[in-house]
């Protein structure tokens, strides 16, 4: 049950007004900081490239221009944008399934069962999370090649499925929010670990599973570096890598390359909006789970 205080409406002393002003200022500045660039981005496809530079940055152009931008974007390399979006969905959803299948049981076991090497596993996980990326790519590429996976979707899905943060999330959730007595009682009753996991732990863990799912999906949807290096063909690219290709076809960034391609800043902005929509929609729908995820275990007794 969320504790929701009524806003303090007792005596409005100067200090309370002062703190209300400070809070208001803080929230307003943050709001402008976070949202203003996004508003600019949303308005960009409605203008022509010239208007974006010449007119007021926050002005609205025309709906017709949005239609033009749409057409230019989707005729780029014969509809490559759609292919890229589809690829992103495949990679993100595929690795999501694998992530959940591996991370949730692992987190459970790390928290609630005892076996040798438990602490070692936790420590190793932490170390690999901190290792910088540039040098990890080569060994990962060599491995993927050894198993003939280069050029397949697995070359992206498998590395994506390795999600140590997800494991930590689940680990801490189970370690702190599981009602121990329930587990102890179930064990005494003769439940096997597997039954314990499926029948008792999983249903209670729905919030943290939602959390892991959300962050895994977003992380993989936005991941640029690994697919960029590992995928040989442009029609296998996810949308983030595709955006990079659009960027290098925009005259503002590459004066000569843009010849005849119709990709200018507004088209690029439209492509970005399309690329982030799935994430935003997902966030909107999973807001409750994300926040209550930490909470559910706390008061269940």
């Amino acid at each position, binding site marked *: 049950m969320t504790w929701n205080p009524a806003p303090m409406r007792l005596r409005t002393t100067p200090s309370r007004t002062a703190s209300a002003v400070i809070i208001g200022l803080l929230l307003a500045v943050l709001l402008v900081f976070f949202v203003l660039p996004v508003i600019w981005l949303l308005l960009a496809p409605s203008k022509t490239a*010239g208007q974006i*530079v010449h007119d007021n940055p926050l002005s609205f152009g025309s709906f017709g221009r949005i239609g033009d931008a749409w057409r230019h974007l989707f005729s780029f390399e014969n509809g490559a944008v759609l292919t890229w979006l589809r690829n992103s969905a495949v990679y993100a959803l595929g690795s999501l399934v694998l992530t959940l299948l591996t991370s949730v049981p692992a987190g459970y076991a790390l928290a609630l069962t005892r076996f040798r090497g438990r602490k070692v596993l936790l420590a190793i996980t932490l170390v690999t999370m901190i290792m910088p990326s540039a040098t990890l790519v080569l060994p990962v590429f060599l491995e993927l090649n050894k198993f003939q996976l280069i050029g397949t979707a697995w070359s992206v899905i498998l590395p994506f499925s390795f999600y140590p943060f997800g494991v930590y999330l689940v680990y801490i959730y189970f370690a702190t929010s599981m009602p121990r007595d329930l587990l102890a009682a179930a064990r005494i009753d003769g439940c096997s670990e597997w039954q314990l996991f499926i029948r008792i732990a999983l249903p209670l863990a729905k919030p943290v599973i939602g959390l892991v799912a959300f962050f895994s999906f977003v992380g993989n949807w936005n991941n640029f570096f690994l697919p960029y290096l590992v995928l040989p063909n442009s029609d296998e690219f996810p949308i983030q890598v595709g955006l990079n290709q659009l960027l290098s076809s925009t005259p503002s960034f590459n004066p*000569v390359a843009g010849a005849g391609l119709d990709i200018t800043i507004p088209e690029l902005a439209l492509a970005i909006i399309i690329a982030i929509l799935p994430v935003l929609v997902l966030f909107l729908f999973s807001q409750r789970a994300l926040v209550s995820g930490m909470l559910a275990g706390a008061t269940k007794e």
Partner: protein
Amino acid sequence: MTSSRFARTGRHAASVRVLAAACTLASATVLAGCASADPSTGPAAKGGTSAFKPVAQKAGAQITVWADSTRLPSVQAYQKSHPDVKMKIVTYDGGADGSTYLQTKVQLFDRTGEGWPDVVFGTPTDVTWASAPTKPGATPFAAPLDDKLVPKNTLDGFAKGSLTPCQFNGHTYCLRNDIAQVVLWYNKSLMDKWGYRPPTTWAEYEALGQKVAKDHPGYLVGSVGDTNSHESYFWSSQCPAFNLTKADTLRVNLQDPKCTRMATLLDKLISAKAVTTQGFFSQGFAKNSGSKVLMAYGPSWYGQYVFKAAFHTPAKQIAAAPPLTWPGETTASTGNVGGGVWMVSSHSANLKASTDLVTWLTTSNENQASAPTYPAYAPAAKAWLANPANSNYFADDVSGPFQQAADEVWTGWSNTKFSDATSWSSVVLPALTGGKSLVSTLPAWQKAISDQAKANGYKVTDR
């Protein structure tokens, strides 16, 4: 519970200390006889054996072509007109904006022994690493095209000096797609209105710049604020900033009179505000000053992509003039800003189809007449100039200046493993923005170039 944990940590800490000490001792003893850490694939590395040994050829094998989005239509057109050639077309960023995608992928392919594309479009910088092995024992990625692949006649048809970036170890490893010879751009309508004549020497350019600053303040005769402005100015002045005297030795001497003369000239114009330190390609420039560019010293593609596309200068106003001369010169030297190359992979199983493709792409009138930029192959360039689409926009016939400049590109500005724009953009441009003069920044620029060259394995000299 707590005490036992601390005790455990205490014992743990002690054993860690012992372990650390042992390690240090061990490594100290081992260090004595350790191998050198220097990479063995520096610029001095030769390209494998002197004779190029192609892999087993299979007639009719499929070729994989990597092109950028701008060249994609050309490759598709070839496929359409040659349906018997089996091609797989892949797009990538083409090395734009300093991307090292091609180099990265080829290195990965070299390690796994498979996966190389047959034909790629790249930048001249790509040829510097593609003409040498990427790791000990590997074959260089680019095939030497002069070795029984492309006839000498064809190679001789390219503009003077345009194949120099492709040449290493006595072989030619790529075909130049286009060149960007630097010419003098000017707004003919404005010049006529104000009674100015386009300059023919640098002294005239400077004098005109001073005049414009006095009589028509706000109007510009050039810009040094772009990432490649130095190629327009310093390369044209024959400044030895990137002069490879040997394959592995770079000569950098920015105190050479040929460098200081340009730096001094530009400094005078910058203080007169006739030359801007803001780049033509900055977002706000077109808005604020796009209509105030009286002259610009830049590559042949400025006409269409800067004046027309970025500044929206109306048609029939802009014209080009041949490169400027210094006192005592009969022939001018000029710079070059860009240009792509096509390479054929030495691992290709269908060298014939690959070579035919790159030859068609670079030399055929069919393809090059409608290319976005000036072709390097001279006959194709003639066809390009004859194409109205490429010259309608201008006030005058640009063929003369373009063709003259195409043969005047100075070959002393070498193609190195590292981009020549890095030191200019990250050292000189911020200094200029901060109000320092070019002359006073020359030492810092020289140091940046030397440092970068050494980091890439070159020996650096200043004589």
